[in-house]
């Protein structure tokens, strides 16, 4: 645990060592606000809820989360510091987890800075605060799942741009697999079981049920197991591709 904590601390400091972190957070907070008010027509809905706010999170994460994770391993390999890091007495698993937790905390900080929205709906009306808390939990878990995919793509290349694009692409597939547009393409010919399987892998449907304020254990298990799976894959890829 101690090693994971030290690596997390270093990675988190690395995020804030450049203004990029602040720009990123500003974009995230600004966009969630703008989308909620202008695109989501927050006032016209005339409801004291954050449904319109959470609805845009998967789409924002699609582009922003791979940007957070893209440097985590690609940069280590490009600059050769991976050799320095992995010849210290830490295991690859500890290094992967340390980096993941740092990135997740970073997303958590960005997410926490959107809480003025929560305050706003409480001033304007009487929202279901339990549902909002679950929405935040769901959003945070989903960010973790996107990050795990992004960090895995980062472990596959030394080019951060490729890591970003590949990360966005895989996250996109996981997000889109739940919407009717995609499922419709399969429904005509594929067996129902396959369509259901594809749909069940969607982050979107899992997240939507969480933002409705329904804590279903299987949704939480789904998101955490997806995260675990991609982190496990990351450990394998880092080990396999160390020399390259």
């Amino acid at each position: 645990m101690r090693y994971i904590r030290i690596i997390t601390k270093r990675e988190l400091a690395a995020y804030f060592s450049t203004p990029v972190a602040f720009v990123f957070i500003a974009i995230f907070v600004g966009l969630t606000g703008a989308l909620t008010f202008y695109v989501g027509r927050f006032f016209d809905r005339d409801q004291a809820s954050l449904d319109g706010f959470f609805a845009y999170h998967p789409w924002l994460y699609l582009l922003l989360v791979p940007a957070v994770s893209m440097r985590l391993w690609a940069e280590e390999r490009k600059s050769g510091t991976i050799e320095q890091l992995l010849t210290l007495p830490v295991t690859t698993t500890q290094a992967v987890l340390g980096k993941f937790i740092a990135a997740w905390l970073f997303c958590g900080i960005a997410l926490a800075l959107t809480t003025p929205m929560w305050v706003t709906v409480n001033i304007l009306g009487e929202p279901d605060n339990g549902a909002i808390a679950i929405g935040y939990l769901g959003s945070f878990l989903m960010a973790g799942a996107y990050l795990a995919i992004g960090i895995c793509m980062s472990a596959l290349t030394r080019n951060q741009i490729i890591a970003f694009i590949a990360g966005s692409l895989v996250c996109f597939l996981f997000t889109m697999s739940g919407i009717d547009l995609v499922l419709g393409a399969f429904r005509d010919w594929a067996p129902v079981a396959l369509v259901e399987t594809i749909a069940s892998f969607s982050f979107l449907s899992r997240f939507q049920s969480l933002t409705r304020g329904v804590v279903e254990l299987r949704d939480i298990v789904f998101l955490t197991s997806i995260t675990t799976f991609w982190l496990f894959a990351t450990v394998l890829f880092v080990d396999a591709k160390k020399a390259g």
Partner: protein
Amino acid sequence: MTVMVEFDHLSKSFGDFCAVDDINLTVTKGEVLGFLGPNGAGKTTTMRMVSGFLTPTTGTARICGHDVVSAPTAVKRLIGYMPEGSPSYDDMTVSAFLKFIAEIRGYSGAERDARVARVAERLDLRDVLARPIEVLSKGYRRRVGLAQSILHDPPVLLLDEPTDGLDPNQKHQVRGLIAEMAAEKVIIISTHILEEVEAVCTRAVIIGRGKVLADGTAADLLARLPDHTAVSIILPAAAAAHAAAFLRNLPAVAAVFETPGEKGRIRLRLTPKAGGIQVEEIAAAVRAQNIPAIEIFQDGGDLDDAFRLITTGGVSQVAA
């Protein structure tokens, strides 16, 4: 003598390419081993395997009895490793980077700060502690790499080209540091700078195409040169013809080569017959003949010649 590092049939292949081919070595405490070889010989790959970064295809290395394949973390605790090019996190300051390494090495609080201060002192880094690593010159970066490798005072130190990019003063300083630490440690230095071998190494291992080609002291390597007992004499041109005729007939001398030198002088190089030439005997004979020699010296070739000879396959025997 305690064996601290043991290479046991260490091999590494990348696909069909065999980078390191069955290396067996033991290194004992107090030895400074120079790991030499042409570029691409497998030096860095070997260092990476011993440090636990790469897993050997077959064979293993043991550090103080710990196997790098089965107990990599134990090995990593015992070694200080400076990778080739000493990569470090460019966005961190020297101080933050060294503190990070110190924490990973298990130090915290006052002990951590004391360790960082000590290596900064030893490597002359105090002036740059607050600067980001990315703005430092190559010499400073190399010394930051060295500083992190000795921070925990490891029993085994692996340095991949430690003086590459340093100016002569810094080289002298780093070699002094290595000599100072040598007695209590095993230090393995990979290099292609041969003067380093004479300056700091007690033993040199030359590898080529992944195999050990030679293993011994610098003097042992020089002895590989066929003419390693050759002698040169510098004398005025007027005396050259007479001297050459006389020297050619000495029993130990195989041939005499004349080359014109500066200020009207001639250099005569005497190559030996099988038994070798004793420079003292030549000096005595020259005096007895009243040859007006200006300089007489052993001229058997240098380590560069030995290195070329060994790595280009000129010498057939392979060290046991």
